[in-house]
């Protein structure tokens, strides 16, 4: 049974439709990440769940109860804001205890709850400080403490890590995940960072222009993106997307791609491609992630379909753990992921392995995935 359920949600500001009919649901204890480029409506969606923005139509229910018309404080949610939104005139303890104070919780009970949260987040030493005396990471913790102390049905996070420096962001990401595992509370988390989405989520919703592009587990989103937008948006470096043509020869289905020199490249697709038999000669977009395009030694030994090909390497980008090689195919720059110590230099021709088990095909007209 779904714990948080959003049905046919629409939101307009005047004539502008920001959310155009969103359907989402997440089970209790799930971690739902809303991801998309800026302006896609993900923060607005979060604000409607919080009750900070009224919805135009549709419904939102939490734990089986429709909350459309409930005040934010009555939805049993807690929110962590991008700017942390700590009350500048109050100490850390007062910030964390403010909600309880408003609800009329007795002082002793309040102090006990604050102390417990402070211990969880290791901010006990900061309780008497003002927010202006804290570092970015500490403010982040206090903001989370303010949410934790409510012990809500759902936590809402609005890009909570975007104001931290790179290292701290990774640390806090792990911490949020650990916190989620320990408490098991349902979380809705907004980010524009697809790595955050992949690492944290149990479910990812990819949004663009107020429309839900795909909703699924991180693995589904990553391995079977619904359309070209999702394929391109998720993953870093992003998926190689190459214009190609379907070739059917007898029972065998393959795709061909133009090369700068020489014969077009013909790649056979496995049995799974049977459905494509009727598409002979049609244009498609061939998608393959950089990690499925490797030097021969790194090729996946369990793969059933591997094609090898000589490619001219244009640029080498060592990233420490891996080395990325840029080459050309079908008139596009494509990126291959090599072992860190692969003996390949820019300007050389190297033999690369295509793991065609991981190959995806998209319809260039509808943008949808067809394989």
């Amino acid at each position, binding site marked *: 049974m779904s714990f948080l359920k959003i049905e046919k949600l629409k939101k307009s500001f005047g004539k502008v439709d920001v959310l155009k009919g969103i359907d989402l649901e997440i089970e209790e204890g799930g971690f739902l990440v809303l991801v998309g480029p800026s302006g896609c409506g993900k923060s607005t969606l979060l604000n409607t769940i919080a009750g900070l923005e009224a919805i135009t139509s549709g419904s939102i229910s939490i734990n089986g109860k429709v909350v459309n018309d409930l005040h934010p*404080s009555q939805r049993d949610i807690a929110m962590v804001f991008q700017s942390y939104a700590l009350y500048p005139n109050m100490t850390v303890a007062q910030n964390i205890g*403010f909600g309880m104070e408003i609800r009329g919780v007795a002082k002793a009970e309040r102090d006990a709850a604050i102390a417990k949260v402070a211990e969880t987040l290791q901010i006990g030493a900061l309780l008497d400080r003002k927010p202006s005396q804290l570092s970015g990471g500490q403010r982040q913790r206090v903001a989370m403490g303010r949410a934790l102390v409510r012990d809500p049905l759902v936590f809402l996070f609005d890009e909570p890590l975007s104001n931290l420096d790179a290292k701290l962001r990774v640390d806090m990401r792990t911490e949020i995940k650990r916190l989620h595992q320990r408490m098991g509370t349902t979380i809705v988390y907004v980010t524009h960072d697809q790595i955050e989405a992949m690492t944290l989520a149990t479910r990812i919703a990819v949004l663009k222009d107020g429309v839900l592009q795909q909703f699924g587990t991180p693995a589904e989103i990553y391995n079977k993106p619904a359309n070209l937008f999702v394929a391109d948006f998720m993953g870093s470096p992003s998926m190689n997307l190459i214009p190609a043509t379907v070739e059917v020869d007898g029972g065998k289905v393959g795709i061909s791609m133009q090369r700068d020199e020489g014969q077009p490249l013909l790649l056979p697709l496995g049995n799974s491609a049977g459905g494509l038999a009727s598409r002979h000669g049609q244009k498609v977009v061939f998608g393959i992630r950089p990690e499925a395009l490797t030097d021969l030694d790194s090729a996946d030994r369990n793969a059933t379909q591997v094609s090898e090909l000589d490619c001219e390497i244009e640029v080498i980008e060592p990233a420490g753990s891996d080395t990325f090689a840029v080459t050309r195919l079908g008139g596009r720059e494509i990126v291959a992921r090599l072992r860190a110590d692969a003996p390949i230099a820019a300007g050389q021709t190297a033999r690369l392995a295509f793991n065609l088990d991981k190959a995806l095909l998209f319809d260039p007209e509808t943008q949808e995935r067809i394989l």
Partner: protein
Amino acid sequence: MSAKPIPVGAVSAGNKMLRVLLYAVLILFALYYLLPLYVMTVNSVKPLAEIRQGDMLSLPSVLTFEPWAKAWSSAQIGVQPTGLKPYFFNSVLMVVPAVAISTILGALNGYILTKWRFRGDDVIFGLILLSCFIPFQIALIPAARILGTLGIAGTTTGLVMIHVVYGLGFTTLFFRNYYAAFPTELVRAAQIDGAGFFQIFRRILLPSSAPIIVVTVIWQFTNIWNDFLFGVSFGDFDSQPMTVALNNLVSSSGGVKEYNVHFAGAILAALPTLIVYVVSGRYFVRGLMAGAVKG
């Protein structure tokens, strides 16, 4: 870099000259502005006979505080020999509520116009702002009519109301611009914490509003204390402010012109605003800048 090193001494010497010149000009202007205060102060502690000798700038040869005492408690104001004292308290009774009410209402307006936006709020703000530009004289007769209808003509209550209404445009402007820069996420966080409209205002916004409150209070205090037109138009003996009494003191036709008493009275009338500036002037500039830059 290939630029020739500039001799340090030359620069600092040039700089020094400039500094000296700058300070000389500043001091000159300061003296120029302080001269009236000096003349007033010096002549308010001289016997009248000494002023009559004609040298307004000289220090008193005989020091007397009798003119101050007279201006305060026994000088002829109009027909009554009451001194400025009762009018001083009239002013206080008018200024304190008028400043307090207009500041609070302005803060509420600013809070609503920035954090509880509604359809047409910009138009409303524009209209409120427009009231800053309405000349007093235009409003005199309608205001008199309204005060009469309400039965508060000639009372301190009536004057307070007039000043509150007239002050709202400015106080709303100040607070709106200040609160426009106040992070809306704080208000949202407080909403989720369950705080209501007034709780958010009192617990979250007001504690961060000290600079703009100081600006507004100084602005309103100075304007209302110094107001003459409304005071003379709508005030009775029981409600006439200090400014009107000072005018009556200085322009009373009978008898000798007691310049020393007039000077003392004028200083007494100006003293409260002077004190407000000296005490909180620093915040005034800071608050004005905050509102101006971020607004």
